[in-house]
């Protein structure tokens, strides 16, 4: 027991240690190398960092559940873009314009519904055909992105609603609106995964699907709900971000799926399913954002950021493999 708990603590705690290391490193390195004379760990800087983590962060939190469940969703970036277009475009419809500020919740609702429906389509295909989620969502990634271009053309869709912008830029207790959405989503999903039947089943199915079936768990519908959830979260991410920016390009959200997966994996969730934690993913998201900001702070060229993140990801996975080797051996018999 102690070894298992120790390993868990090490795995799930590692990302927070990593964040501390990053903070220390960039603070100290910043003293010597920074082009600005502001300290790295400036309070406003950190608040901004959380806000900037929100778009990918909200998606990554959902991706954690999908991956614990033993699936993957590559279509979140396209879903994100499509939901953004629905949000901004719907507010220009005469019917909604006539509603004044009531158009805002309706537009939000439509965008979130779009995400949930797109997710449901993925889930139903995975369930009913039995095709691997990787393939299904690879297809829907292309398909949904195609829809974006069909609806939108090559031009950006723009609509600024100042009430909405004010809401998105507001700070409550110091935190930005987007940060609140990130934190509340994290809390809700953490409760979902650690305290509810749905969460328990997600782990069981991801760890051993056959045993889950034999325990009477409805595996198919369970997975569909998870895809609905991640579709909804991709849309929520878009809604939060575009409420402020007010303009969506058809290429927006590209590679979001990979950034989300990177954050999840960095947080210690296993690609093979059955293992992972929402809070560690939150750590993973913050770690990536810190790295981006920190490298900028010490004057590294933006081009190097991806290289460094890539190297760190591989290093983390190697470390993970070493840590887990012993545990695997015991199971082999």
């Amino acid at each position, binding site marked *: 027991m102690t070894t298992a708990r120790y390993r868990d603590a090490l795995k799930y705690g590692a990302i927070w240690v990593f964040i501390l290391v990053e903070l220390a490193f960039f603070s100290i390195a910043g003293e010597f190398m920074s082009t600005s004379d502001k300290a790295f760990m400036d309070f406003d800087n950190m608040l901004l960092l959380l806000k900037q983590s929100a778009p990918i962060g909200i998606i990554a939190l959902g991706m954690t559940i999908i991956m614990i469940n033993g699936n993957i969703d590559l279509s979140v970036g396209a879903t994100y873009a499509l939901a953004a277009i629905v949000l901004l475009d719907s507010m220009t419809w005469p019917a909604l314009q006539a509603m004044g500020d009531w158009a805002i919740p309706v537009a939000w609702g439509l965008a979130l519904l779009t995400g949930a429906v797109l997710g449901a389509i993925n889930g139903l295909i995975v369930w009913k055909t039995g095709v691997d989620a990787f393939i299904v969502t690879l297809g829907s990634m292309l398909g949904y992105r195609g829809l974006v271009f069909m609806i939108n053309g090559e031009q950006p869709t723009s609509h600024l609603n100042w009430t909405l912008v004010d809401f998105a830029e507001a700070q409550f207790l110091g935190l930005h609106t987007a940060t609140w959405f990130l934190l509340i989503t994290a809390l809700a999903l953490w409760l979902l995964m650690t305290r509810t039947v749905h969460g328990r089943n997600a782990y069981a199915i991801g760890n051993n699907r056959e*045993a889950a079936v*034999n325990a*009477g768990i409805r595996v198919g519908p369970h997975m569909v709900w998870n895809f609905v959830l991640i579709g909804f979260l991709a849309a929520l991410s878009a809604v939060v971000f575009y409420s402020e920016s007010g303009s969506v390009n058809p290429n927006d959200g590209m590679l979001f799926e990979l950034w989300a997966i990177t954050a999840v994996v960095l947080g210690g969730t296993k690609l093979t399913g*059955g293992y992972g934690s929402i809070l560690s993913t939150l750590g993973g998201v913050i770690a990536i954002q810190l790295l981006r900001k920190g490298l900028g702070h010490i004057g590294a060229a933006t081009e190097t950021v991806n290289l460094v993140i890539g190297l760190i990801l591989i290093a983390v996975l190697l470390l993970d493999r070493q840590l887990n080797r012993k545990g695997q051996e015991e*199971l082999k018999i």
Partner: protein
Amino acid sequence: MTAPIPVLRLEGIVKTFPGVRALDGVSLSVMPGEVHALMGENGAGKSTLMKVLGGIHAPDTGQIFIAEEPTVMTSPQQAKAKGVVFIHQELSLADELSVAENIFLGELPLKSFGRVDWTKLYADTDAILKTLNVGFDAKTRVGDLSIANQQMVEIGRALTVNPRAVIFDEPTASLTDAEKVVLFKVIADLQTKGVGIIYISHRMEEIFKITDRISVLRDGQYRGTLTTADTSEDEVTQLMIGRSLDLSRNTSHHALGDVALEVRGLCCGKLFHDVSFALRKGEVLGFYGLVGAGRTEIAETLFGLRTPRAGQILLNGQEVKITSPIEAIRHGISLVPEDRKHQGLVLGMNCRDNMTLPQIDDLTAGPFVSDGAEVAIFDHYRDKLDIRTPGWHQTVGNLSGGNQQKIVIGKWLSMRPQVLIVDEPTRGIDVGSKAEIHNLIRDLGAQGYAVIVISSEMPEVLHVSDRIIAMFSGRVMREFTSEEVTEDNLVQAISGIEANKFVEGR
């Protein structure tokens, strides 16, 4: 060379896994030109011994000698380089590649710049195939071959080196009689070349036909070596089964209740036909037969994992349709599956979560799972079944086989099943825990549970069952009460000897 030295000798091999002493001082020697049978029940340690020999597991203590030279095995490739070759029961061939590529997989002959020397590859392969006397050539795609011919390809792999010792693991499991003849000829050829052969099989007939000596393992211990010509099937069986375990006949007599489960004329394609039986409350009904006799498939059908083609299932006198495990569980049918690790447990989850998995929907307080209710269930069954674990948060994958099995049994007992089906209750479990599981099953009967036990181990079936159904090739051959059953008539019933009489008698 005056006295021949053994091509292969194992001495005092000990291998332990967490909770199980898989090999306990096993010694074995194989002389050149000898066919040496290795026998033992499932879980006796044969495969572990072969994994030690192939370098997959390192022995805790003990030594391997090749031609009397101490050798440390590190991998099957290294073993092969030293002339020790394995032919596994499960074929490990690449279906999409040719016979030649499979035979020389990993050691393709090369020309300059790493190009494959196809001419040499095909010529070498055809030379090997010729010694095997088979009817296909080097360029055939392996996926197009019959299982028997694939087995020949597997053997062909062994011949790419000049082997000193070849280990056959259940080579005839999927062969027809004609194909066996060919295989035995190949073995005889190897023998005349002075190769030592270890032959692992359960089939007495073959063992007595082709082997020179027989070594027996039981519960990880070496039980002796017999000269085939001087021994009898009885003597070998005695050594294999032993009596280290209390496997006395079940003679307990408690009153049985009403019929809990009745099955009438159940069919499922080729897997089993016209299966009928009744099971009363408080009764332990054993299903005995060879692997593939259809026993597990019946259990899976009752549990909703397979759809029957015909027949009825009645629970407490009411006909039920069971189309999924969810339905089965709702009707109170529980299955402790054959393959605990893949079908029964979520190995990465803790003990408590595994135990409450099927009923977690009912253990909620508001939107959340109630920790207290879960722990209460776990504690109850931990005490009742004497599950040894440091606590409920222990990951199930780290428990011993016996404790894992108790978790699965506890999981279903906590659902208060009408019918509990236990498939191979003690597979991969050490002797001490075996006895506990046996007692547990008998207790469940005494407590009024209706239990079905499927087992391939005769002593186990005889020990736990109040009644035994013998199956052969998907049919119920005979039903025995615990008074009338003998090992002899049970063996006859499951080996198909009675099948012929049965058919003629009609």
